[in-house]
């Protein structure tokens, strides 16, 4: 029993040193775990889509658009619907419905643009004429060069 008591002062030094090491160990461990967890959490969050600024896209040739037909093309990252009416005139509008983002389609019989999701209707100029869509569809310019149909943001040349 005496021997144990004699050892106490030495034990005390060792204890404080041990506590110190344990403390550093704990802190370093937590920091290290944080450096592991942080990248994993950031990884899980999906990235923003970068938009490549596009000015014009070739939609096809005139022969690919008989009167009363339509086609959806990719303009940068957005869909655009290109319409050729029965009277031969072209029209190009953004194909994302302004209600809840469904992709619209062209109805040849009524010459209107219809959204299948909630029965929204637009005219060939893009104006919202019926149903839930609150805003008109954005319009694009149609340029006819030789035989090609080119959709652009503005009249460039």
């Amino acid at each position: 029993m005496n021997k144990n008591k004699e050892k106490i002062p030495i034990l005390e030094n060792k204890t404080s040193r041990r506590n110190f090491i344990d403390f550093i160990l704990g802190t370093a461990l937590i920091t290290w775990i944080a450096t592991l967890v942080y990248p994993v959490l950031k990884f899980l969050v999906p990235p923003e889509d970068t938009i490549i600024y596009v000015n014009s896209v070739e939609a096809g040739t005139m022969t690919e658009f008989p009167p009363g037909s339509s086609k959806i093309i990719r303009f940068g990252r957005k869909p655009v619907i290109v319409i050729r009416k029965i009277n031969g005139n072209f029209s190009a509008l953004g194909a994302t419905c302004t209600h809840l983002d469904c992709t619209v389609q062209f109805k040849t019989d009524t010459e209107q643009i219809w959204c299948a999701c909630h029965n929204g209707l637009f005219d060939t100029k893009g104006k919202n004429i019926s149903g839930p869509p609150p805003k008109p569809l954005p319009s694009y310019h149609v340029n006819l060069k030789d035989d090609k149909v080119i959709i652009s943001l503005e009249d460039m040349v």
Partner: protein
Amino acid sequence: MSLWNWINERVDIKSAKNFAFKKKVPVFYGSIWYYLGGVSLFLFIIQVMTGILLILYYQPGSATAFESVKFIVSKVSYGWLIREVHAWSANLFVLFAFLHMFTVFFSKAYRKPREMTWYSGMILLVLALAFGFSGYLLPWNELAFFATKVGSDIAGAFPVVGDFLLRLLRAGDEVTGATLTRFYGIHIALLPAIFTMILGLHLALVQIQGMSIPPELERIPEKHRRYMPFFPDFAIRDALLWLIVLNIIALLAVFFPWELGTKADPLASAPAGIKPEWYFMFMFETLKLIPSHVMFIEGELFGVLLFTFGAIFWFLVPLLDRKAHRGERSRFWKVVGVVLILYMIMMTLWGYIQ
């Protein structure tokens, strides 16, 4: 009441803990090799974790695979890091598995009573190579495409079952998007399931039977042998080593990233200097050395049979090494091991020097 006690009142975990804490590791000149198994396990765990993260963004399919990897590497936050760690850790995993196997071989740990540990370990090694082969195709780049083509061609060289095996592997006659889908399923579902089961067996055997010591040390009486308790002493040393390995992987990920490559085009011709991954290189170079006909057997078939029988021979070492069975050293097996290692290293280097 502590959580421990709450669980212990319902399920006897105290006995399990006591059993675990009984584990001790022999301390002698060769103790350092004990770490290799643990490092392999650590690398496997890293593979599973990074693999699961990659699954969240990867899209298999000939039109989307390459693009999705490109997306991960360039657009996803730390996507590059997860991908690079997965790629490097895969290679290190195969390396350490081989090292672990060879240290076990030279220390004759496969002798009775640990034959099953050796058998399960060999299966794990083959599964690791399968993981490597199937995973390599997934980025769907040029190198991967042709490596898979050549590799599966060799499978077709097997007698009788060759053609069937090739079609089974490729999900068709050629390497296509269907092959990619099949390899993806094999890589993320089939292999992990089988691997985990056999790994469980392997680890359980090690826990139950304890660590093996070389035959000559068995002559030392028990009370003169030195041991280190696994918890906390060996475990904390293990943790230190794992930490260092992790840091090395991080360094490799930043300074030696794996290339994206060019997208696979089945119609394009094979690029010059096409070669398989390093862990298959020695087999590849050996096959190249074999002449077109050895006696009456076709060269490729001969090579395939050579490796198959070689693997079976190696698998059966516990059965064949009668001396180890008796607890004696065997010069013959030592030489076999050394020759094999030297051969593998030389053929691998040879493949790269060309």
